């Protein structure tokens, strides 16, 4: 286990060097996406003017306040509370995010599934786990909302945040076929019979 402080965008070689349970802190740009963002990008043929190559996306739909544009609030939004949502709902978008947009890191909670794990291995990507439900803390790692695209989808717009020391995040799925979620699930499944037996249920 090692700790890495990464500045975005990140080259593929650095992503390939990451292993399960390494920790990461990110600085630079971070893109917020969610269910509707990806439904519009990949199912409804919309495009974004943002370049996501080498970047990290985070599964989020933030609480924001509309404010006049100024140097502190270049997008006209002030952050209120920004946190991370459950990733598995968005499983089918991992491959196009990496393949079409060159995304290298997906930040979320709860983990992604088998196809994502294969996509990470084939295309060079990782899943970084954040502690879900800790948005008040996460908001303190975000310096500004720099820009926003697909703004009609608010709060599920495509957000560009400027972050500094965002994390620690844990590499929970790497580009070598490793998934902490699979390990935990397999271990838990192996304990299922014993857990049921404590209640007198024998399978």
């Amino acid at each position, binding site marked *: 286990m090692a700790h890495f402080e990464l500045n975005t965008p990140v080259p593929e070689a650095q992503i390939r060097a990451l292993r399960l349970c390494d920790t990461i802190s990110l600085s630079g740009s971070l893109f917020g996406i969610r269910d509707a963002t990806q439904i519009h990008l990949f199912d409804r043929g919309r495009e974004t003017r943002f370049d996501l190559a080498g970047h990290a996306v985070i599964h989020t739909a*933030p609480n924001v306040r509309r404010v006049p544009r100024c140097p502190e609030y270049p997008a006209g939004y002030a952050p209120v509370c920004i*946190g991370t949502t459950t990733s598995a709902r968005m499983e089918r978008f991992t491959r196009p995010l990496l393949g079409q947009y060159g995304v290298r890191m997906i930040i979320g909670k709860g983990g992604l599934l088998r196809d994502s794990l294969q996509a990470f291995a084939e295309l060079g990507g990782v899943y970084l786990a954040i502690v879900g439900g*800790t*948005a008040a803390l996460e908001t303190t790692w975000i310096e500004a909302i720099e820009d926003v695209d697909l703004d009609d989808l608010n709060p599920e717009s495509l957000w560009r945040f400027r972050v500094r020391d965002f994390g620690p995040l844990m590499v929970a799925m790497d580009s070598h076929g490793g998934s*902490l979620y699979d390990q*935990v699930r397999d271990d838990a499944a192996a304990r299922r019979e014993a857990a049921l037996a*404590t209640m007198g249920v024998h399978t």
Partner: protein
Amino acid sequence: MNLYPAAVEEMARALYIRALKQLPDDVKQGIERLRAEEGHAGARRVLDTMIHNIEVAEDTRNLLCQDTGLPIYNVLIGRDVVFDGVDIKDAITTGCRRATHEHPLRSSVVHPLTRLNDHTSTGRRVPVIHFDFDDAPERVRIEMIPKGSGSENGSWLRMCLPAEGVDAIKTFVIDRVLEAGGKVCPPTIVGVGIGGTSDLCMHLAKVAATRPLGSTCADEEGARLEQALGAAVNALGIGPQGLGGDATAFAVHVETAATHITLNPVAVNIQCHSARRASATLTPDGIAFGF
């Protein structure tokens, strides 16, 4: 005692914001207890982050979680209270909308078919409002629960058969917790509804999931099952955030109802570690806020 819509609107507005910002004491103590008992170093770090987040939310007066949830209001009305139910429902809805605009809060509510969000945290039949009545003469209690979607997606119903007995209920709960894994933001409160009709069973699971920690099922058989299921769930090793560890659930809560001779329904509804709720009690002396 008269219950005026203006007072209810103000309570509904304040309760939504309070619930999002301040975790009940029983839940805070629950996280501390799990942290003290946790045997895995990684899981301890996750629980520490959760405890840190509660402190930051209180210090910065920010929301605990970005998910403002589906708003639920449970209204308990004493027998000598005079009110117009339609006005009270409208007042709760208006209070919920005002909280969303005035704070501002993210509206997490959309039309189920068009998926359009009108940024009010309300819509057809939302907020979810439950009315109930009790013996207290001049008292109205409103409980507000912002139910987050990560854990609400951890909801299931199975119409088991009478021949499958209690074993089917136990197996269903264990298998749903396995299926939910880290998606429901563990450690959780696993709410289990047993009996009734399909709709009542699902409702009971929600009541169980949002009950304070430390409370027990009023049905003796249900209370015994809570203990057994609680230990079994935590023997699975799913841990906080599904990353492994002892702290998979704070507790399993069970609620029961009588059922039909040919039914054996079981429902599961999960509450995440940010088990938020807030309440306000209105009496002739004024309003008292709590959990």
